[in-house]
């Protein structure tokens, strides 16, 4: 296990390195003078620009520039925003908690809705609860989440006036206010996720419920609850974790969109605003952080596999 862990970490490190190279290349390709980019707010005084060039070695060969850039990045220095002159890392730290709260709440929502629905659909396979759950899941996956968001706003906020339509209040100020404004975004971001989880669990559990070991479990006189949850569902979780890992790719676009609709000052909004204001340091910094996060999450999912299914020998070359 340890050997596997080390190997995986090594692979992730290589991937991380390559990803950072990609980001660096993209950053170089972005229009505009890098010195100007870094100078940002401070203006276009040629002397200042030259000083920056010297300091950041912008006239140096590319690989040297890369090393400087990555070294700074590893220390958390991504430069300053062109627009506001705040440090990029500062902006990231400011906005990340909002997105993380949204992500965690959506994940919880997806699990608490998706798992039971999937289990029920599997258990009542072929009968109406199954068909009903399937329809719900198909809709959940097909309906674009931003449209769902707009419709929810229309219905709940504008027509019914139960919840505010947009905006954000940090939990430190008012927990109730925070939750009020996070409910709709959570539903919007979590629905697609819930549908994917539900579908995967259903399909895997149907197979599990028909398996020999479930028959043995029943033959031992175990209660249906033990059989369904302790045996069938437990063995199906691996597949669900896979799906969750795959869904994460959609998670970030979902978060960006959700934050845009509900005007949440999160990470997603940061990046979109940066694109439109051509705030390249922010773009580069954010992309680097996101890529790193993804690689770490993928690593985490792989490890989780190992814990959940002792049969999986992950140190074999997977096909």
């Amino acid at each position, binding site marked *: 296990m340890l050997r596997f862990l080390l190997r995986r970490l090594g692979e992730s490190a290589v991937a991380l390195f390559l990803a950072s190279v990609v980001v660096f290349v993209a950053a170089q390709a972005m229009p505009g003078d890098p010195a100007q980019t870094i100078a940002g707010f401070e203006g276009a005084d040629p002397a200042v620009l030259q000083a920056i060039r010297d300091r950041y070695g912008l006239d140096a060969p590319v690989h040297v520039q890369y090393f400087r850039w990555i070294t700074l990045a590893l220390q958390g220095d991504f430069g300053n925003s062109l627009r506001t002159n705040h440090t990029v890392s500062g902006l990231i730290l400011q906005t990340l908690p909002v997105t993380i709260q949204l992500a965690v709440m959506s994940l919880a929502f997806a699990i608490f809705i998706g798992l039971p629905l999937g289990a029920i659909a599997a258990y009542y396979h072929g009968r109406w609860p199954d068909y009903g759950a399937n329809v719900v899941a198909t809709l959940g996956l097909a309906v674009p989440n931003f449209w769902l968001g*707009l419709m929810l706003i*229309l219905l709940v906020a504008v027509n019914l006036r139960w919840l505010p339509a947009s905006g954000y209040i940090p939990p430190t100020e008012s927990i109730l206010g925070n939750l009020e404004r996070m409910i709709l975004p959570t539903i919007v971001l979590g629905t697609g996720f819930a549908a994917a989880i539900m579908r995967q669990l259903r399909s895997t559990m149907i197979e599990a419920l028909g398996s020999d070991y479930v028959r043995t479990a029943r033959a031992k006189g175990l209660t249906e609850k033990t059989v369904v949850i302790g045996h069938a569902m437990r063995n199906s979780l691996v597949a669900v974790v896979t799906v969750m890992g795959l869904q994460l790719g959609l998670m970030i676009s979902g978060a960006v969109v959700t934050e845009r609709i509900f005007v949440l000052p999160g990470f997603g909004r940061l990046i979109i605003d940066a694109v439109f204001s051509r705030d390249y340091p922010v773009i580069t910094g954010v992309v680097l952080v996101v890529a790193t996060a993804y690689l770490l999450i993928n690593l985490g999912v792989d490890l989780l596999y190992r814990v959940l299914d002792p049969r999986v020998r992950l140190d074999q070359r997977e096909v």
Partner: protein
Amino acid sequence: MQDGSNRFGLLSAVGILGERNSQMLSEFARSTQAQVGAILSLTFIAIAVFAPLLAPYAAHVSDFDEILQGPSAAYPLGTDELGRDQLSRLILATRVSMQAGVMATGVAIAIAIPLGLLAGYLGGWLDRAIMRLVDVALAFPFLVLAVLMAAVFGPSLWNATFAIGLSQVPYVVRILRAETLSIAQEEYVASARVSGVPTTTILRRHVLPNLMNTLIVQATIIIPSAIIAEAVLSFLGLGVQPPTPSWGVMLSSSQGLITEAPWLVWAPGLAIAAATISFNLLGDALRDVLDPKTVGRR
């Protein structure tokens, strides 16, 4: 062999399709899901192709006297803030979505085929290197790629679809590699290799045709995802630029007018959902026939 249940038997008898393929086609055509999915998908494609003929008004026609009108006889889905007919824009936007679906799939497959084939067939360091690249690619979801493309090249439909296609490459490469690996074990491949047939020919003539089923299955997964992804990117402004109509763009501009013109919110969203469901149904039905042991959906 006469099989009464194979309606496409004639096609195989005449030599157009292989025996097995025509049986699969028959099985496919029998399922309701397939029929519904196929009809709906073809409808969308048809709408996309004939859009200018179907739309009552041309794309950019605006009548400033008719701003933000609700649905009426002249404007069945109402008008937007520039007095443009929503129905026409909706129809024309179908083109964008279908284009996105096709182009993204094309990009993904074009890049994934060589990578997957080489990785699966040649193995060794090349395989490991390609899989490392795949790992890296997985760190960049389609939105991030689109952001990068937009930052470097400026936002456009092509850049957006390229980013979408690129984001699908890792998944397709993995699957193609696995398939190639198992095909490479087959005897006829081994004998071809032993006979000195050049690798490119083997890949082209023996491996690739056997991957067709998998490629079709992948296409059915990518297209609906691409439709939604394009809508998301356009919604955020990273894809299609106004005034070109796209469902995502339409939704984006409707957001600010949600209280004044709620009718602008309904139609584009429904269109996206309908298109996605149609291609998903078609895809599911195709997968049932072509690949019974499908890997989990994305």
